[in-house]
């Protein structure tokens, strides 16, 4: 603790100590930003939801660009589009579709939770809201996956 002393001299030893402490020490840090999002070991529920929300959010944005790129194939005419549709009905692609639905469900359901909690209602039940939301999402995902893989059969 250094006081203001209105111009009076400090003892040289005191001056030396204060000089040695000048500035700030290094900031104590856990893992940095996006790396920390994946370290789920010591996360509690709310933190897990926060990380998942960011990861799925980025994923959805990435998908948006992908989707626009795919749609632009329509400009290439019927042949180009049919070629894409063949690819799009392969099991691998259908699997990716299911992953997309998973991301949308998680982000949407958690987003609803965030809207409720962030408004100051039900903040005390945020954990229950998350897990019940995810459970509901799991049911919807199962339903969606079944339809994705069996539609048209």
């Amino acid at each position: 603790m250094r006081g203001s002393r209105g111009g009076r001299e400090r003892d040289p030893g005191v001056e030396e100590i204060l000089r040695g402490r000048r500035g700030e020490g290094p900031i104590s840090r856990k893992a940095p930003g996006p790396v920390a999002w994946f370290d789920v070991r010591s996360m509690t529920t709310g933190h897990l939801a926060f990380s998942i929300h960011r990861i799925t959010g980025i994923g959805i944005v990435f998908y948006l660009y992908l989707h626009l790129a795919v749609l632009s194939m329509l400009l290439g005419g019927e042949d180009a589009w049919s070629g894409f549709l063949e690819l799009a009905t392969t099991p691998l692609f259908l699997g990716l579709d299911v992953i997309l639905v998973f991301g949308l469900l998680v982000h949407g359901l958690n987003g609803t939770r965030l809207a409720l909690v962030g408004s100051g209602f039900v903040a005390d039940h945020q954990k229950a809201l998350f897990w019940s939301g995810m459970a509901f999402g799991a049911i919807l995902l199962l339903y969606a996956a079944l339809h994705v893989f069996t539609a048209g059969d």
Partner: protein
Amino acid sequence: MTRGSPHVLIVGGGGTGGALAHDLALRGVRVTLVERGEFTSGTTGRHHGLLHSGARYAVNDAESAVECIEENTLLRRIAPGSFEENDGLFVGVTDEDMAYLPGFLEGCEATGIPTQVLQPAEALRLEPMLSPDLKVAVRVPDATMDAMRMPLRFFATAKANGADLLNWVDVADLELAGGTVSGARVRDLVTGRTTRIGADIVVNATGPWSEQVASMAGVDVPIRPSPGVMLAVRGRLTNMVINRLHASGDGDIVVPQRALSVVGTSSWFVEDPDDLGVPADHVQRMIDEGSILVPAVRHAEFRAAWSAARPLIGSREDADSGRELSRTFKTIDHAVDDGVEGFVTITGGKGTTLRGMAEVCADVVCRKLGIDTPCSTRDTVLLPHTAAYAA
């Protein structure tokens, strides 16, 4: 003599050191305080947070009682917002307690401590968690403080007034030049480097460590570190401080601290104030005695148990258990007592009397330095404790 205005080096950053830095800074004296740990980490921060009415000393230690009630009143004025001003109760449960009552009331009257005798029903209305077997309760102006944050206000104000308060600086040795203490060799624990601080007067404000520091100057001070155990349980069982209406004994006080209740205390002697231990039988005694006053203590969830050392004034030949020694405080000018110039010890006392101790010591220090500015700590409202952390 150092260049320029006189420089006082205070060794010890407990409540006493902080209050002394504040007093001297107000008098325009150049002050540096060194503390080897965090401020109040030695003993001051560990007590249960009682702002003493002095009633505990009203019968056997009138000097301490008067000091307490005066400082109690004063501190509420200069540190507003730092106290839970809910008063305290001295609760009588047994016939022996009742026998203590008349002498207690007389002692309080004689020492200026206001009292109000309450019948059990009234006491239970105020404090429903009290033992239903209580026979009488006497209301006194006890209050509760945060044991660290209230003293920290002295540090905050001293710093704002120009004092240099250096925590994490350990005194390795005192420097003597021909029978005069001229400074200290210190180590900064932040950087690991050793340096020397020169001073016209070094004040030993190290509480239970007073003897250790005094020996660096080749003098002896009659301080016996006397620890006591305290126990914190979960649950704010009372809002008022609850004391047992008897002569001092173990576990005879229950103090609310936020959402906890602190039961204290016990007493024994140690040689090394750094190594107190927490005797399990003492902790059990806190539970047993505390639940006589507040039965819920017995089954309340454990939070913490710890020891804190009182700096008791008294030589090795004095009374056996710590309690019989006085809780008053003492300023020792070693030039007078031991022929060592430039060295003063301030010791003894209680958390409640920090300002008063500092005033007496600052008077001695200023007299030695030929400074005649009077004390103004009685009327100076202290800054909030958060100011101690300002850049």
